[in-house]
């Protein structure tokens, strides 16, 4: 009898009839919340629309349908609420660009004062609204211990305004404000903020990263977060076909490549310590990921991109070592995080 290999072990495709109901995706449930329903104006292949749907339906399932969401300005907010229509089927407020975490804090405070803490609060925004302009409010929410789950949908630039660079834009990527020109290889190296690590530095109850390539994993992380109280943060990589210059039908694959190259580590942390890692199944060189996106096309135009690609490979290699992405090990075998961060501070060697 031939051995059947289940490639996606651990990722349970929607509707797998061999699965126990509890293990199945929320999307497999005909009674799912459908928090963001059809008819919104997202681009074909939008990673954010996909990630938001899975994350919020999982949150609603975990909370018995009782969730209020605060959303920052950005693609998600704009494409989901073209007046007079709305895609949202849960109570939802959009206030400003920089204040989604603070608005979520206010909602949680009101619910506490009203004695309705069975209703859970979600704050969400893109990388721009979270990592840059929203960081002060996010840090305040973390620091105070407010009972909010914050979801960052990271497409690595200000997409809604036309693809400008944010502090989440990776090195060498082309954006409208980091055009590859002689002497400028796209976005600079040595910049940027690692929000998951910043969240961990606040020692909040739960921090996780996820991608839309492993949707059941994303759901599971939301479910885990919803078991806890206090500030929780999930950072979801969501490819943007328009901004990344990738094929709309390849969104999930591109997200998978980000993980399988080691460029985007997928892990969980509680109280500031990594508690679990989603291992790379089949290691790929960074080139495989970069070639799929026109935002990196300049690295392949002539021979001059080789050095940059090598630098990116070193970044990926460091991530693999730092988080134990290949052996999936963490804890005693893993180098102490502080040591790894100190080395990162010293920059590429």
């Amino acid at each position, binding site marked *: 009898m031939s051995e059947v290999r289940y490639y996606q072990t651990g990722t349970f495709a929607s509707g797998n009839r061999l699965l126990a109901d509890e293990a199945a995706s929320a999307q497999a449930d005909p009674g799912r919340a459908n928090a963001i329903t059809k008819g919104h104006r997202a681009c074909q292949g939008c990673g954010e629309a996909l990630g938001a749907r899975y994350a919020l339906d999982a949150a609603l399932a975990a909370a018995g349908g009782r969730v209020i969401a605060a959303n920052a300005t950005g693609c998600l907010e704009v494409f989901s609420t073209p*007046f007079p229509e709305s895609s949202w089927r849960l109570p939802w407020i*959009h206030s400003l660009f920089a204040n989604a975490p603070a608005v979520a804090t*206010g909602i949680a405070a009101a619910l506490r004062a*009203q004695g309705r803490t069975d209703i859970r609060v979600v704050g969400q925004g893109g990388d721009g609204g979270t990592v840059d302009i929203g960081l002060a*409010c996010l840090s305040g929410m973390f620091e105070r211990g407010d009972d909010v789950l914050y979801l960052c949908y990271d497409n690595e630039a200000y997409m809604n305004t036309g693809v400008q660079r944010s502090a989440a834009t990776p090195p060498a990527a082309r954006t409208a404000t980091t055009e590859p020109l002689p002497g400028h290889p796209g976005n600079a190296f040595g910049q940027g903020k690692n929000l998951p690590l910043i969240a961990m530095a606040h020692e909040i109850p739960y921090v996780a990263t996820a991608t839309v390539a492993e949707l059941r994993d994303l759901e599971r992380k939301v479910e885990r977060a919803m078991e806890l109280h206090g500030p929780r943060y999930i950072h979801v990589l969501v490819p943007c076909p328009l901004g990344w210059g990738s094929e709309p039908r390849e969104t999930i694959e591109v997200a998978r490549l980000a993980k399988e190259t080691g460029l985007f580590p997928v892990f969980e942390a509680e109280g500031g310590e990594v508690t679990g890692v989603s291992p790379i199944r089949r290691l790929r060189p960074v080139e495989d990921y970069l070639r799929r996106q026109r935002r990196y096309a300049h690295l392949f135009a002539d021979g001059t991109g080789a050095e940059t690609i090598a630098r990116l490979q070193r970044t990926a290699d460091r991530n693999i070592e730092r988080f134990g992405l290949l052996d999936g090990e963490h804890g005693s075998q893993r180098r102490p995080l502080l040591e790894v961060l100190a080395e990162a501070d010293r920059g590429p060697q």
Partner: protein
Amino acid sequence: MAVASQLEGSLAVARTVARCRPQVICAYPITPQTHIVEALSRIVASGELAPCEFVNVESEFAAMSVAIGASATGARAYTATASQGLLYMAEALFNASGLGLPIVMTVANRAIGAPINIWNDHSDAMALRDCGWVQLYATSNQEAADMHVQAFRLAERCSLPVMVCMDGFVLTHAVEPVELPEQEPVDAYLPPFRPRQVLDPEDPVTMGALVGPEAYTEVRYLAHAKQGEALDEIPVLATDFAARFGRASGGLIETYRCEGADTVIVALGSVFGTLQELVDERRAQGARLGALAIKSFRPFPVGELRAALSSTRGVIVLERAFSVGVGGIVTGDVRAALAGVDVDTATVIAGLGGRAITRSSLHAMLDRHEQGALQPVHFLDLDIDLVERELARHRDGERGGPHAENILRELGIVAAGPV
């Protein structure tokens, strides 16, 4: 029967706000509002005000954002700020009024930098006069306390946020008699908050959607219409307040000896007390002077002002802020209200950055006015020679040095060299 206490203004406001039963108080400290939020933090921590969540936020922008989230969830929300803090939350102020959230906020009026200045004037609230919030100006600590009670009811009735302005230091840090409204009559006057729309899983709504050119004008006009309703509602609330609490507080305007006045000084805030003494002194000398306090600046009481000022010959608008490059701010609104009426208006800008507005300076100004020698825009107690020397230092592209230091050196406040 209620009993008066000798209280600091900030404390009177804090205790009164507590009696309005806010459910979420979020505040960031800034001089001169600190005593208000400190007192409220103690009141909440002691359990005297419950249920109430006191949230220590990381900025004024966060303060207003937390208030937005709380109010949208159906909780009565309150915050306080001043000056730079009010500006820092500017975006959120527009957002709150655009969303129709009935947040109440105390603004302890303070000047805006640069140069940094912690003392009283109206630049802060004036800078945000168009943000869609109702703006009320208290003339005394009693009125400041009372206005908060009225403000919550007004806000929730009209679905509009309300800022109660009280002069920083001059009122916030003044100890004077205040009758604190008691809990029972406040509860009778101010019923529990019933939001018009609210974030509730039982009945989900989407708040804050994008609105394009096809509908934006109408949505924005609604804010204007609501302020029109507030214009009608404010006197009703004030009358009800007077009936229940036994004193006149708030309303749209207050006049002092304007009957038969040749000249009326129009002003906002605590200077009204000084103006009343001034009026008595001038009247005793035979002049026919009156004073008028605008209590509600937004919405602007066009009708009331017209009625009060139509038969006077001259109006002097005394302002504690100005519009750089043109002159008065309130003056513009007063003139619009008096359109078609044959009245001279002059602007006197006074009390900037906490400079005292004294009766002696006002007397001198009125003497000039009577002689017809007052400029259309007059800066009270301005040392114009000092200004001109400083301007001369900076002419011809020479490096004149920082303005503030140069002027302070001239005034002898900063040492000219090593001490």
